Every structure is written in structure tokens, then in C-alpha cells.
């Protein structure tokens, strides 16, 4: 028998952490896509187009950032899109009834947060697997929204409120500022707070996390509530940008958000990933769709391309990480 304790002394492979390396690869990929698009299309590098890409990426990012925390705990939140729709419709109604955008924004955030909290209760107290709990929640929310809206469309909001989604400040769209703010907050929360550390620990091994004294149930409640609240925030941006709300606006949001999280390098098995990676994931997804538009590729191809990118990204991720282990 060889002395195992000696074998274990392997020099660290790199002074950069695994997460940093994965994010670096993704930045490279995003830059590569930009370079290709810049060569193929004259209009790609125009300021208007770049801002447009950032604005679109921000919408996906708001939903995906909260979702990232859920996925870090090895969970999934399939109800985010439906949550956006319900929150937008309720927030829109409040603004119409009261004329107060502030009250509407608060209602939208609260609605999203409460839905998230309910998801958390199902996952922790009722021990329903998150995939199923939030899938059921998706239908419940859709049902509520369709019943509530009854085929109506809310239209026309105060100009000040519409600035949130479509306005500019110093030449940059306001959603881009919000994107930077929440990218900062999300990264700080995940990397620089003890709650963030505990979330990573829960995702890496929930049993060990509990036996290490981490209040697992409370942290999971927090994570699902944050995911819901971020959906609430996204609903406000949508409402403000579209200047209208309908029952079906959430249907095309969930799957792209999950794609952004996966392309961004967060593992569905939990414990691995970063909020910044999710930002790059959202950026890559938007860049590719934008590029296809610029190159006049039929929109019918977009889902197929998205699917291939997700599979490629996750596969490359697994390959590089396995080598690192």
C-alpha cells in the first residue's frame, strides 16, 4: 500500500480559481462572437446596435441572475416567466387604478417576491423537488393571470414610468444602468457575503451543509424569494418598455433565462457558477440572436441555434472541469 497522504500533495494547477477560468473562457467566446459579427455585418458595431444588445441582454439577465442563485443550490425555478407576467399585470393594474408608478413598482416587486417565497415553502417545508414545485407554480400563475386579465390588455402608462424601460441617461439606456447595479449587487451577494458562501455550500453538498450548521431551509427560502423578486423587477422593466401588459408576456422568458444561466457556466448540480458568468451567458445569447437578425437569418432558426449553444457550453464546461479534477 502506498502512502496516500503523500500522493495528495499535487501543486495547484493555477493561481486563478476554477470559476475565474470559466468566466474568462466565456468572455473570450463573447469577444470572438463580436469579432465575427463585426466582420460579417457593417451595422453590428454601431452604437445604436450595441446599446440595443445590452438592453436586450439586461432583460434576460434580471430574470437569470435570481435564477442563478436557485441553480447554485442545485434547484430550478421554472415559474420565473409566469411570475413576470402576473407581476406585470398586477403592477400595471395598480398604476392604472392609483396613478402612482411607485406603488405599482412596489406591488410588482412584492408580487414576485411572494411567489418566490411560496416556491421556497414548497421546496423546504413540503420537500417537493424544486423542478416540480415551480413547474406546478408556472401553471398556477398562468391560470391566475389569464383569469385576472380575462383577455384584456393593459395599455398606456405615465411617461415618467416608461422612462425606466426606454429612457436614456448620459446616452445609455436606463436598463443598462440597472443591469450594472444588479450585476454588482448579485456578485457581491454571492461572493462577498456569508449567505452567498452558505448558498454555494448548500449546492455543493446539502447534507454536509446541514451537518455543518448551516440553516439550509432558511437559506433556500431566501434564494427562492430573491429569484421571485428579480422576476418582479423584470416585470416592471417589461411593463415600462412595452407600455402594455398581457397575460402571455411571460411565456417566452423562462427558457432563455435558463439558457443564460447554463451558458454562463452555472452547474445544474449546484455549487458551481457565478452571477457574472450568467451575465456573459445572457450577453452571448443576445449577441447570437442579434447577429442572426443583422445577417437576415430567418427567426425560425433561433431556437435551434440557442439549443446548440447551450449543449456546447455545458459540454465544454464539463470537459474542462473534469480535466481540472
Amino acid at each position: 500500500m502506498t502512502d496516500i497522504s503523500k500522493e495528495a500533495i499535487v501543486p495547484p494547477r493555477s493561481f486563478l480559481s476554477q470559476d475565474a477560468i470559466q468566466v474568462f473562457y466565456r468572455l473570450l467566446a463573447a469577444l470572438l462572437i463580436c469579432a465575427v459579427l463585426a466582420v460579417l455585418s457593417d451595422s453590428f458595431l454601431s452604437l445604436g446596435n450595441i446599446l440595443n444588445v445590452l438592453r436586450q441582454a439586461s432583460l434576460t439577465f434580471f430574470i437569470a441572475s435570481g435564477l442563478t442563485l436557485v441553480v447554485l443550490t442545485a434547484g430550478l425555478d421554472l415559474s420565473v416567466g409566469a411570475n413576470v407576467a402576473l407581476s406585470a399585470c398586477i403592477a400595471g393594474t395598480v398604476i392604472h387604478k392609483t396613478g402612482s408608478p411607485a406603488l405599482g413598482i412596489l406591488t410588482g416587486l412584492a408580487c414576485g417576491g411572494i411567489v418566490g417565497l411560496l416556491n421556497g415553502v414548497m421546496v423546504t417545508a413540503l420537500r417537493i423537488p424544486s423542478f416540480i414545485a415551480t413547474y406546478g407554480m408556472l401553471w398556477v400563475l398562468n391560470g391566475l393571470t389569464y383569469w385576472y386579465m380575462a383577455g384584456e390588455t393593459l395599455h398606456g402608462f405615465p411617461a415618467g414610468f416608461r422612462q425606466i424601460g426606454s429612457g436614456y441617461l448620459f446616452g445609455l439606456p436606463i436598463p443598462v444602468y440597472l443591469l450594472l447595479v444588479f450585476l454588482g449587487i448579485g456578485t457581491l451577494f454571492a461572493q462577498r457575503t456569508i449567505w452567498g458562501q452558505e448558498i454555494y455550500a448548500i449546492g455543493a453538498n446539502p447534507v454536509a451543509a446541514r451537518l455543518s450548521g448551516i440553516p439550509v431551509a432558511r437559506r433556500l427560502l431566501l434564494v427562492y424569494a430573491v429569484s421571485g423578486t428579480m422576476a418582479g423587477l423584470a416585470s416592471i422593466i417589461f411593463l415600462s418598455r412595452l407600455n402594455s401588459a398581457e397575460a402571455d408576456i411571460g411565456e417566452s422568458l423562462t427558457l432563455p433565462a435558463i439558457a443564460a444561466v447554463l451558458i454562463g457556466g452555472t452547474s445544474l448540480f449546484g455549487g458551481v457558477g457565478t452571477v457574472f458568468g450568467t451575465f456573459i451567458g445572457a450577453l452571448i445569447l443576445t449577441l447570437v440572436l442579434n447577429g442572426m437578425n443583422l445577417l437576415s437569418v430567418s427567426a425560425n432558426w433561433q431556437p435551434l441555434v440557442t439549443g446548440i449553444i447551450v449543449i456546447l457550453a455545458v459540454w465544454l464546461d464539463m470537459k474542462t472541469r473534469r480535466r481540472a479534477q
Partner: protein
Amino acid sequence: MSDALPIEVTSPTPLLELRGISKEFPGVKALDDVSFAVFPGEVHMLLGENGAGKSSLMKVLCGAYSADAGEFYYKGQKVAIGSAADAQKLGIAVIFQEFSLVPHLDIAQNIFLGREPKGRIPGTIDRRKILADAKRVLGTIGFDIDPSTIVDKLGVAQQQMVEIAKAISQNARILVMDEPTAALSDRETELLFALIARLKADGVSIVYISHRMAEVFALGDRITVLRDGRRIDGVRPADVTPDQLVRMMVGRTVDMTYPRNFADKPGELLLEVKGLSSSTGISDINIEVRRGEIVGLCGLVGSGRSEVARAIFGADPVSAGEIIFDGKTISGEPDLAARRGIALIPESRKSEGLALLRSVSDNLVVSALRKLFPSGLFDQRSAQRTSDGLIRQLRIATPSARQTVGLLSGGNQQKVVIGKWLAAGSKLFIFDEPTRGIDIGAKSEIFALIDRLVAEGAAALMISSEQVEICHVCDRAYVMREGRIAGHLTRNELTEENIVRLGMHHA
């Protein structure tokens, strides 16, 4: 190897004979030159402590492990057992403690699983035939039950009967049973013994693993004692006393380079457990641990030791009783126990103690986050400084605090698990098999560490299947049996024989 046939031979050729079987796993020799013979129609008792090699021998017999060395003879002919199919062909069947039945299928389907009689329409099962065949097999073992009963609805004893019926339907001639009476009532045990007598009369041989002395003498035709993966002796029940058997089972040696300094006077009471019961099968547990003490918690595997540890730590819900720690009653989840100063070093450190993919540093600070960063703001560099300190203090062999903890050796991983509670400043350390799978050098280091902890005013409750370790390091020990405290041994009474005697079933 020469003593392959224990004592005088009852029948000229054994049904099955194992000669010089060895099986090694990284770090442990599970079986070391074991020879073992089974004669037709005999009940052969297999005895040994936890880790003596009974399970490994059983797994070699049924083809789950392939032996590194040794030979098998079936009716005098050399054969190979390299797979479960080989074992089945020779008529060897194992009834494990965890049954391998499919709960939502009925008895007949379970008995003929994978061998169902085909119906007239391709892809269907001949329902009438399978029921009739099942009825016949059940009849041969005297089990009167409707074969279309769903297995899920059966009690443990009945499920065991189905397992036996399944083995018999596969023409099993050697039945290996692992503690078959562990979950049976007295009445059910009698029925099982009657069935064993019946099988014997039919010429079926039974290899019977037991921890109950009464059974060994009531049923056994022959006894083989294993210890540390070696065959110690083969005897007839008439020729030995229970005490002699206990002596054969104990007597392990272990290199302990670390001598413990026993405190003359234990400190103040730290943990008091009163009448503790939980749904996991422990009842009326009373334990006291004082500062400066290492208290052992021993007993057989499955006697409820880990369950006691988990209940104290809040990992399993408590159904009755009280846990008083440092003068205050505690009840709740592990996070509460951890905050009060209780540490659990669980039995399986890979699945319960560590986040294997995370770094040494991440794992070392995970229980101390609140203490190290009271503001709630985490700082990676400060966490690494704390970790570097612990790595030096515990002499954890790792290139850096950023190394993935899964890449460390078992001993160093164990030090990380202990280290996270040192960082948290725990007062009571509950160790569940702290030296399992750890090489000898690391073992003494871990004992030295535990000694230092208690010398500094902490306390330890230590679960171990290695009785010699308990005797070596503990101030005193509780011995468990079937979910209860069977006895308490003071420092002077603490011997391996006393532990085994209290832990076994003498009834």
C-alpha cells in the same frame, strides 16, 4: 492453508470449499487467507466483530466481489466464482438484511422476476402459471399465503420468506443469511428456525451470520470465527462456551504510538441526555459527558450509536427526552446545536462531512462564517488566513488552502472536518468512527488532537467499532444494544471483552 478443513470431517467432500481466499481494498486487507468449508445440510455460523470480514466473505461467496487470491471447490471440483451468475449456477443464494424485492410487485412476480413464464401473446406473462408455480414454491417452505399479494403489504418476516422462496425456486443449495433474525419478533424467529430445520432436512446448507449467542448455540452445527479478515478458528458449539467465543472474536492489535494522559478529575457537566428517544429506533438514552473527558459510545453496527449522535446534534427529530447542553435545554435543527457549541464529525466524511468540489479553505470556514465575519461580509483573504492557520495547526497535507478538498487523502480530509469545528470554537465534539479508512499515522495524529482538545476544556463523545481504540483513549464508555444503552464501563472496566459481552445478545 493446511487447515482448510476445520476439525473432523462430517462428510467426505464438502459441498463448497474456499481455500486461501484473500481480498484487499486500498488501505485494508478485508480477507486474508481465509479457508472455509460448507457441508451438505449443515448450519454454519459465521461469527466476528464489526469489520472482521464477514460481509466481505459473504460478497465473495455470492460473486459480488472477486477474490484477489484463493480457490473454490464445489463437490471437490475446482470452480470459479467471478460473478453473481457463477454463484447462482452453483446454487449459492444470499439473503441480505436489506431485501432485494420490488415492493410494488406481487409475491409471484418477485419470485420469478426476470424468469417469468411466457404467455401465448409475445411479450405477455402467463399469469395463471406464475401464480401456480409460486404457490408450489411457497408450499415447499411451508409459507401459506396468496402469491398475488403485493410485497409492500408484507411484514419483514414475510418478505424474508419471499426472499427464501425466491432462492429455493432458483435451486439454491447454499443459503447465506446475514443476521436474519435482526428484525424479527420472537414468534417470527421460531418460525424461521423451523424453516431452517426443514431446509436442512432437504440437504440445503446454511451459512448464518449472527451476533446473538443464543442462536449460535441453538442452530449452529459448526462455528467459524473471523477477526481482522482472518479465520481464527472453526469449532463445534458443544466444544466451546460463549466466553471462549468472545475471546476468539476480540484481541485485535493496533499500533498506537499515542499514549493518552488521563485526567484525574473530570470537569463540569457539559452534556446531559435524559431519556432520549427518536423515530430512528433509539429509546431511553441517558448519557453524561463532562469537560475534559473522552466518552466512548460502542456497540455493534446498527445498535443505534450514530442515531444517538445525530439526535443530540439535531439532525434527526427527537420524539421524547431532553438534551441539556452547557446548562441549557436544546432542541432544534443542527444549526442551533452548532451555534451552541456542539460539533458532529459524521461517519461518512465524503457524503456528510465535506463539500468535495470546494476548496480546503471553503470547507474549513463553513461552520465559522458567522463567528469570523460578524458583519455578514465575507472576505476570501481573511478566510484563507484562518485556513492557513488551521492547516498548520492540524498539519493538513495540502499544497494550499485553495486545493480542492476531494483531492486530499482520507486522513487529511478528516482533519479538515475536525478543523471546521475548531474554527467554529465548538465545546463538545461528537466523533462518529473518526478513524475509519485512515492510515495508522493519521490515526494517532487524530487521537492526539482529540486529547489536546479535551485537555483544553472541551469534551468528546466518540463512536468507534474499533474496541481497542475505545479502550485506549476513552475515560469511560457506554455500550449500546438494539437502540438502548446496555451498560456503562468505567476506565477500569473498559476492556474489549466487556464491550463485546455487553454489546452481544445473550438472551
